[in-house]
């Protein structure tokens, strides 16, 4: 595996706010990453630093072995689709697609055309006349058809309906299978994308909390439910990620159990339920908040 992005001790502060706080990680070639975290966690700032739209306060960023700052060779291999991507208002949709090859070395006009049909995007309509969802579709299409070896999608779906989002995931997978590249999806809709991800980065308060293979995280925790006494007896000696109580009943989320422990838990009368990636991340990011306060 080849690392195409290397980030070391990266920090960015805006005044007193540390939006990104001493972060180190690598991104490997041809993988799909999830960059997950709450609002204001630092996701957009981090992606802006990687694409040289913001400058680091300290630390280093290398993309394809070079600093991305003022580096056209790196930037034409990189696409960054923002949540509210701006295009000149008087442009028509077709003008956006026609100017895209100036910025993206691997731009594929055929793909853009077929995606525009899939998303039912009127090519002759002016940008300012597009609905919120249609504007997002323009961004999604530019991101996919750029076929950039490093592509960032930052919450690209504002206003996109469920059908259009599914279309985006399907086309993303299909094109990725034919033309592998590194894709970073930043999103709140974790359940929707979790199966697409190979690797997950969770960021909170500017720090990386989780940097792990998605398959390792899946099934890494289980929730026990039963009477409070049984739950606590079984959970004692284990790391408890989360605990809730309702009268005499309690639930506790603990690291995954092996087959013997599962059987013991079931025999003790406990109900076991899996913890989805989304729940796991909600619990991890709320737990870190409790530690801080």
């Amino acid at each position, binding site marked *: 595996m080849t690392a195409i992005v290397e980030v070391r001790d990266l920090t960015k502060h805006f005044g007193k706010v540390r939006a990104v706080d001493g972060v180190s990680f690598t991104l490997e070639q041809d*993988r*799909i990453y999830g960059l997950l975290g709450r609002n204001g966690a630092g996701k957009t700032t981090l992606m802006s630093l990687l694409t040289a739209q913001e400058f680091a306060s300290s630390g280093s960023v290398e993309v394809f072995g070079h600093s991305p700052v003022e580096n056209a060779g790196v930037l034409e291999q990189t696409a960054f689709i923002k949540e509210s991507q701006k295009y000149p208002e008087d442009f028509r949709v077709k003008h956006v697609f026609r100017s895209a090859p100036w910025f993206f070395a691997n731009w594929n006009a055929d793909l853009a055309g077929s995606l525009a049909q899939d998303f039912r995007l009127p090519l002759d309509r002016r940008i300012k006349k597009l609905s919120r969802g249609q504007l997002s579709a323009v961004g999604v299409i530019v991101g996919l058809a750029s076929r950039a070896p490093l592509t960032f999608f930052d919450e690209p779906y504002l206003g996109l309906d469920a059908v259009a989002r599914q279309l985006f*995931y*399907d086309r993303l*997978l*299909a094109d*990725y*299978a*034919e033309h592998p590249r590194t894709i970073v999806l930043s999103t709140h809709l974790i359940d929707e994308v979790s*199966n*697409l*991800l*190979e690797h997950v980065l969770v960021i909170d308060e500017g720090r990386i909390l989780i940097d792990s293979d*998605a*398959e*390792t995280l*899946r*099934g890494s925790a*289980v929730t026990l439910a039963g009477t409070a006494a049984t739950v606590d007896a079984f959970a004692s000696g284990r790391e408890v990620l989360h605990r809730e109580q309702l009268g005499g009943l309690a639930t506790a989320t603990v690291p995954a159990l092996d*087959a013997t422990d599962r*059987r013991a838990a*079931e*025999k003790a*009368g406990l109900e076991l339920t*899996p*913890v*989805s*990636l989304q729940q796991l991340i909600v619990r991890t990011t709320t737990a870190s908040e409790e530690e801080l306060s």
Partner: protein
Amino acid sequence: MDDSRPIFQQIAEQIENDIISGVLPEETQVPSTNEFAAFHRINPATAGKGVNLLVDTGILYKKRGIGMFVAPGSQARLVAERRDQFRTQYVEPLLVEAEKLGITADQLGTMIREAGR
């Protein structure tokens, strides 16, 4: 796909199920990694991991440049493995639930015979 286990294991299990039920007869080609990924809407690397799990255990074998095929003898082998697991996967949880409800082993036996009719 459920959340409790890694997806690659679930992919491997589904292929195994199709071999056991005869949907994928021995010596036939199984779908490609990208076809599995598109159908289940999962990452192709994850689908590939599931397929490779079965290559490692000899259930599937690779024909260079063509794809993955079901190895001869796979069906009988998988049936034997699943029979070994039947006790822990099905019988033991059944007994746990039966005991919770006060159903005796005799009553359980009667129920199974009646349901089988």
